[in-house]
């Protein structure tokens, strides 16, 4: 059995394209617009969301039979908040400068719908191992889109990539891309491309 045929891989890969949180579910838009001016920040955001989603999903799956149905949202929130605060503290200790640039958006991972959505939709009815993989897949799908937007914005808006200049001298920076509406433009273009490819491949039809 090849790797791509296992159930684990299927669960992981589902979040990358077929069920991409930004392209298909259109979740996590707020943060994908806010932290994508630099590739570095987008990557840290990806790490944070991946950390929160993977562990929340795994923990929720591990205790899913005991979680009271009435309070399940509360339980998700509590686990996510604890994890996000831990991540925020780790980030402040290891990368204080990045943590400062990210501002409140690390804390806002708590309210990121992707985290809660995966707990509710997947982890409540699957094993911890599969749920962790599902969380990793979905957050990686989110992270890739985040990185794509960030590369577009940093290269064309600032003329740099990861802080090093990549554009030829005399390049006129596109200030629009760095401003908030620029993020919308990038996201729209990517969304259009994704749907175009999907259409061309005949996917997504009921």
């Amino acid at each position, binding site marked *: 059995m090849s790797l791509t045929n296992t159930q684990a891989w299927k669960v992981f890969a589902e979040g990358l394209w077929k069920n991409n949180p930004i392209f298909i579910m259109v979740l996590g838009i707020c943060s994908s617009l806010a932290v994508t001016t630099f590739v570095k920040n987008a990557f840290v955001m990806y790490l944070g969301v991946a950390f929160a989603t993977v562990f929340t999903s795994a923990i929720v799956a591990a205790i899913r039979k005991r979680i*009271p149905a009435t309070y399940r949202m509360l339980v998700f929130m*509590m686990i996510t908040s*604890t994890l996000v605060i831990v991540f925020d*503290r780790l980030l402040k200790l290891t990368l204080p400068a990045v943590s400062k640039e990210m501002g409140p958006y690390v804390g806002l991972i708590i309210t990121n719908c992707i985290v809660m959505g995966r707990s509710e939709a997947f982890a409540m009815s699957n094993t911890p191992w599969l749920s962790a993989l599902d969380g990793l897949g979905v957050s990686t799908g989110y992270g890739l889109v985040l990185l794509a937007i960030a590369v577009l914005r940093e290269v064309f808006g600032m003329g740099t990539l990861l802080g090093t200049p990549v554009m030829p001298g005399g390049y006129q920076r596109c200030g629009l891309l760095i401003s908030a509406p620029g993020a919308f433009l990038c996201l729209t273009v990517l969304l259009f491309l994704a749907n175009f490819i999907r259409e061309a491949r005949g996917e997504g039809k009921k």
Partner: protein
Amino acid sequence: MTQTWRDLWFMLVLTTICTILLVVVEGIYQTRMATDPSLMRRALQLVGLPLGEDVRSTFEQTFTTVARKEYPGSFFIGKQNPAMIIRQEEGAGLWGKIILLVAYDLRRGAILGIDVLEHSETPGLGARIEEEKFRAQFRGLIARHGVRAAKIKFKEGEFDGVTGATLTSKAVEEIINAAIRKIKTVAGPGGTP
């Protein structure tokens, strides 16, 4: 045991675990931050002292770190000039915690400078407390009885708030006043510690 009681127990146990975890993390974070070299660097820069080759050793030569049971956090007291005291003080801002570093000269009753360590104020408005222009007005500001955010300055200890960020300016005022109050309690009779 009925379902309700079982649910209640579950929530109680989960909350307790989360709380303990957070307390432990926060404890580690606070102790690590207290000895953070970047804090030492900023404290030295705040009072305009050279950093030297090794920030930590320069800091330890310049300041004694004093803790007071009634106030969490440390006071940094100048070794050569014990009237110079730096206090890290925090308070509630508009959106989150604001942490300031306040350097105060007890002998002159003047603020030596402030530095903003942490804040999550509105970008473009309250966040401007970070800017050098805002912080510079505190350098040498006489404030024997604390400071006050004012539109027009005509009394001692008054400073220009940030326009459009009244609550942030008020928060900064309160934090600085708390720092000065605590610094004064560290001082012994005669104004020096």
